[in-house]
Structure formats: C-alpha cells, structure tokens
C-alpha cells in the first residue's frame, strides 16, 4: 500500500522555559554582558529519534502520558513547529485540528467565523460556501448564525467550531484531543462523524487519552513515552497494556504530589491534591451516594486570575463528567489563592475505579481563548464500593451494569 506519512529520526529540543512568557530585553542584555552561555542541561528533548510509517487510509492513535511528546509530534507534522533533527515526508493535503475554533473572533458573528475559521484550516472560499449549509445543520445553530459569538455559551461555541472542523476534507487529518470538549451528546455526534471520516479512506492521526475512543476508531496505536516510541502496533493490545501499567504506576493513595519531571519548565502548576470524605477524613474508597472532597494546591507564579477544571474518567478512559470553576460557577481565583476545595457529589457512580484529571487555565472564558497552563492527567484515583441503591441489594458494577445509577421503577400496568 502507498505510504502517507514517513517519519525518520524526528527529534525536537526545547529550551527549558522557552515556552514560558517572552523574555525581556533587559534579561537578555544582562545575560549578554555576563557572558552566560546556554548549557546543554537547559534543554529538554520532547521528542527523540522517532521513526515510523503510516500507510494511506490508516487510522492511528497516539497515546502516552502528559509530556510524552504527542502534541509535539502533531505540531511538527502539521508544520506548526520545526523539528530539531530528522525529517518527515507527508503525502497529500494535511489538515490539522490541534484545537477547535482557531481564529474565532468574539466580535464576529457565527456566519463570519465559519468563513474565517474555515480559511484558517485551509479551506478555500468556494469549499466553505459549498459546505456551509451542511456545517450549520450539523451544528444545530441556525438560529444564532448572525449573533456575535461573544454572546454564545461555551457549549455553543464549541459546537460551531467543531462543525467547521468536522467538514475539513483533506487527505491526512491530524487530530489532537479536540473531543474532550462539549456536552456528551455532541461528543458522541463528533465521534460518529470521526468514524465516518475514517471510513472514507483518509489517513488520520488521532491523539487522545480516551482509550475507548482510540479502540473504537483506530486499528493501530503508537505509544509514546518521554519523547520516544515505546510500542507500536495493534490498538486493542497496546491500549490494554497501557491501562494496566497506568493503574499499577498510579496505585491508590489519598495524597498525590507531582513528579518533578512533570512540572519541569512550568511556572504555575498543580503541586498536590488530597482526597477526603465530607467529614474531612482521608479516604479513597466511597460508597454510593457519598460526597467526595478534593483539596487542590497550585504552586508557582502567575500574573493573572486563574480557574480550574476537573474531569472524571472511568477506567476505559471515557469522560463521565466535568466541573469547571469559571464556566459553571463564574469563579476566577486570585494569583495568591493556593488552596482550592472541590466538593463533588453525592455520587451516583457504579462500583469501580475512577480517575480524576485536573486542568489549570487562565483567561476569560468569553474570549474563547482559554489558555491551558497545566494538565494533571492522573491527579487522583478513587474507588466506589458498595453501590446497592435498590431494595434487593444488588450491587451495580461498572461496566457490567453501566456507569451511573438512575432511579427507576418497573411495574405491570395491564394484564
């Protein structure tokens, strides 16, 4: 079969701190006059000597923990950033969805933003015009087309943005975790659309933490770890292995602190998280219908207000629900707030192990530019035991009996 992407010895080196806010001329001048030289240990390799081949029509998932180099790989392949060493050959037109809604301007209307965003993704004016009706009917936003997007809720915003992206017709599609946004039903629709895309015979590279999505969409998986390929091959086999190692490495403990490796080069980040029950006792196992309390401690320097998001995943990597201080509660924290309490529940999850992911963001949500400062992929695990809400005391287990408990009654009404 024909080759779509060929990668040979690809490496990318970053200066530590280079991705942090700009330097000032003053710092540079001081450095210059002091004669400070750049030392080798000031660099980190986010990608080191990565080689692989992807055939035309293959759908390949890229997995790995945070900082493994997944996004860097996509950025190099989409030519956003240059590799330091190595090369890649890409055959065909490339579309990259590293984020949805790139270039959306809050003052412009939905209609105007569809055109602008489409052009940025590389669609021609004719192409956008041709697909315009399809895009708006997919987004289900006909009514708000002429409203400036600054009046949109974040859900509407994502809906419109994804609809444009979903209609991008390129030979190769590079997708970064863009599905982790929006409401569940729309996510499903997007996954469906993604499935359609993959059936059309296009080559897709898909980065995700959602093992469920990876398994259902991809036949092949590349597992990256610390910038190198750890494994490459059958998606079912590798994702299972990945999950096993994941749960071993991150066993259950009620206090978690961040690895030095993970916060390297970050100015403001999550340092620590603790989990309690509602009476303040440290606990990692909870019964059905109990409350869960998290105390999160960010650390470092930040020059503006920040907000946080938490997400809960099941062991298949499917996001069950999320909470957000800004989007849901309009809460932005002052830079000196260094301890935050999150109360969740009472839970209605079935018996099983769940994972909490934490995100640190800055910027006003209305502007659409929500800058991710830090993601803590495996902030905490907790277990739900003893989920027996019904009178028979039957234990509802994840995944056998589903994920959530919902009250129900069943009775005969006619004989």
């Amino acid at each position, binding site marked *: 079969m024909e080759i779509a992407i060929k990668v040979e010895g690809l490496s990318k080196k970053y200066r530590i701190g*280079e991705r942090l806010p700009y330097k000032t001329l003053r710092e540079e001048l001081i450095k210059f006059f002091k004669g400070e030289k750049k030392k080798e240990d000031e660099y980190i390799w986010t990608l080191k000597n990565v080689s692989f081949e992807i055939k035309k029509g293959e759908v390949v998932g890229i997995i790995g923990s945070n900082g493994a180099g997944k996004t860097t790989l996509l950025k*190099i392949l989409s030519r956003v950033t240059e590799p330091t060493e190595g090369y890649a050959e*890409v055959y065909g037109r490339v579309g990259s969805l590293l984020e949805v809604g790139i270039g959306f301007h809050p003052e412009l209307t939905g209609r105007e933003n569809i055109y602008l965003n489409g052009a940025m993704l590389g669609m021609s004016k004719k192409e956008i015009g041709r697909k315009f009706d399809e895009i708006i009917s997919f987004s289900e936003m006909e009514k708000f087309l002429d409203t400036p997007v600054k009046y949109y809720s974040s859900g509407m915003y994502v809906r419109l943005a994804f609809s444009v992206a979903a209609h991008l017709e390129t030979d190769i599609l590079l997708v970064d975790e863009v599905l982790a946004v929006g409401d569940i039903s729309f996510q499903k629709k997007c996954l469906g659309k993604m499935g359609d895309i993959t059936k059309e015979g296009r080559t897709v590279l898909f980065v995700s933490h959602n093992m469920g999505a990876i398994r259902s969409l991809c036949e092949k998986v590349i597992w990256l770890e610390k910038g190198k390929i750890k494994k490459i091959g059958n998606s079912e086999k590798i994702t299972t292995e990945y999950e096993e190692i994941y749960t071993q490495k991150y066993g259950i403990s009620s206090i978690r602190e961040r690895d030095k490796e993970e916060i390297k080069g970050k100015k403001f980040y999550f340092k620590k998280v603790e989990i309690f029950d509602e009476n303040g006792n440290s606990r990692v196992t909870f019964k059905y219908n109990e409350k869960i309390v998290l105390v999160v401690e960010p650390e470092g320097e930040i020059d503006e207000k920040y907000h946080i998001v938490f997400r809960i995943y099941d062991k298949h990597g499917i996001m069950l629900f999320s909470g957000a201080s800004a989007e849901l509660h309009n809460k932005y924290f002052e830079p000196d707030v260094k301890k935050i309490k999150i109360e969740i529940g009472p839970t209605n999850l079935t018996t099983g192990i769940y994972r909490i992911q934490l995100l640190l963001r800055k910027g006003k949500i209305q502007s659409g530019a929500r800058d991710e400062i830090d993601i803590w992929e495996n902030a905490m695990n907790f277990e739900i035991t003893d989920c027996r809400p019904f009178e028979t005391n039957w234990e509802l287990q994840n995944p056998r009996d589903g994920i959530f408990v919902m009250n129900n009654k069943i009775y005969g009404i006619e004989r």
Partner: protein
Amino acid sequence: MEKIIIKPSSKWGKLNLKDIFEFRELLFFLVWKDIKVKYKQTIFGIGWAILQPLFMMIIFTLFFGKLAKIPSDNIPYPVFSYTGLIIWSYFSNSLLFATESIVKHQNVITKIYFPKILLPLSSIISHLLDFIISFFVLILFLLFYKINPSINLIYFPLFLLIAVITAFSVSLYLSALNVYYRDVRYIMNFLIQVWFFLSPIAYSSSIVPERYRFLYGLNPMVGVIEGFRWCLLGKEITSIKMMYFSIFIILILFIGGIYFFKNMEKSFADVI
C-alpha cells in the same frame, strides 16, 4: 500527489513565495476580518478615518500655519499639512497595528501552519481603506482651493505603493522582534513620535539645510511624503537626490525585512 518534506530549515532558506500565493484566500479573510472588527462597536465607525487627520490638520493650521507661520512652499497650509497627515496616519496606524499582529494571533500560530508574513501584510493592507476614505476628503480640499492636479498625478499609485511597502518593511522587523521582546511595544509610541518630527509633515523639507539633506533622506517617509505632495499638489521636489536616496533605503529595508522575518518566523510557535 502533493508531497511535503519536513526537516530543520537552514539559516538562510528559500523564501517560499509560492506559499504566500497558495494562502492568498487566507490573506483576503484576514484583511476582511481586520476591517470588520475594527469598527464594530464604534459610534462613528469608519468616520474615524476622516476625523483623526482632520482634527490634526485644524490644530496644525492654527499653531504651525497661523501662529508659527511655517512656510508651506506657496501651497495653502491646510491642504499642505492634510496631505502629509493622511499618509502619515496611514503609515503610523498600520505600523502600530502590524507590530502587534503576530503576538495577537499567538493562539493561531501555535495551532496551525500558514505563512506568518500574512499577518503584518494583512494589517498593512486593511488600513488602506482608512487612507482611501481620508483621501476623498483631500479631493474636496483640492476642489475648494482650486488646485488643479498636473500630469504628475499618474505617479500617485506608485507613491502609494511605496508608502505601503515602507510600512510593510518596517513592520516586518518590529512584529518579529515583538514576539521575542515585548519591549517593542513600549518603544513604539516613542519611535512613532520621533519619526513624526523627522518627517516633513507639519513643515516642508525645503527648510532642511542643503548639507543635511542627504542625512534627512535616510528617513524613507521623506521620499513618500515629498512624492505625494509632488504628484497631488504640484509642489516642487526639494531635492531629487534626496528623494532617490529615500526610495533606495526603502528597497533595502524591504529585502532585508523579508529575510529577517523569514529567519525569525520558524521559532515563533516555540517562543511566543
């Protein structure tokens, strides 16, 4: 099928002008966006394009023309200064806007690929609309003062092009530097002010002593403004040598700027 090779680029790589052509529709949309966004939520809207230079002209006429009696080479001072002011407004406004253009689009730069040079370029182009509108007012002035344009008028598009290239060239350096050092932002106001006084806007270049004219011509805006007054108002060119020198400087700035930008552009996504 299209084949793209991705590898570390050499220091003085190819200019890749083909790329700019391929992304011409994006350039169109960027210009369109700049214009749309600029006047949303303003009361006067596009009227600001006229009001700004008009008010400046009134103040200049009062203080420099009437009180200080600055010579304007036998051209009514209001028209004389307004001609300089509209081209200066275009230059300074588009330059300020273009300098911020890359930093303003950092969210885009770190997420998709396109020739970054389109960002300052679109800022420079979109401001032409303001210029054209204020230019119509100039035509009214010419009618009012009964100044008949000469055959030189055919050179007007050429001088306008030179003005565009000047603003674009300077913005190539400043917008790229602004990515690395946000000090540029603070230097801008100062730079624009100094540059204003070093350009023949409120005064005529004929007041510059003969022996300094060569030095004076180092300022590319001298050539631009002189050229405008020459082809629109029929003002005599103070020194043809100074003028050619000015245009020569612009060309050097332009070519240097393109290479400078090209060289800086590849690490924008990493440092921004």
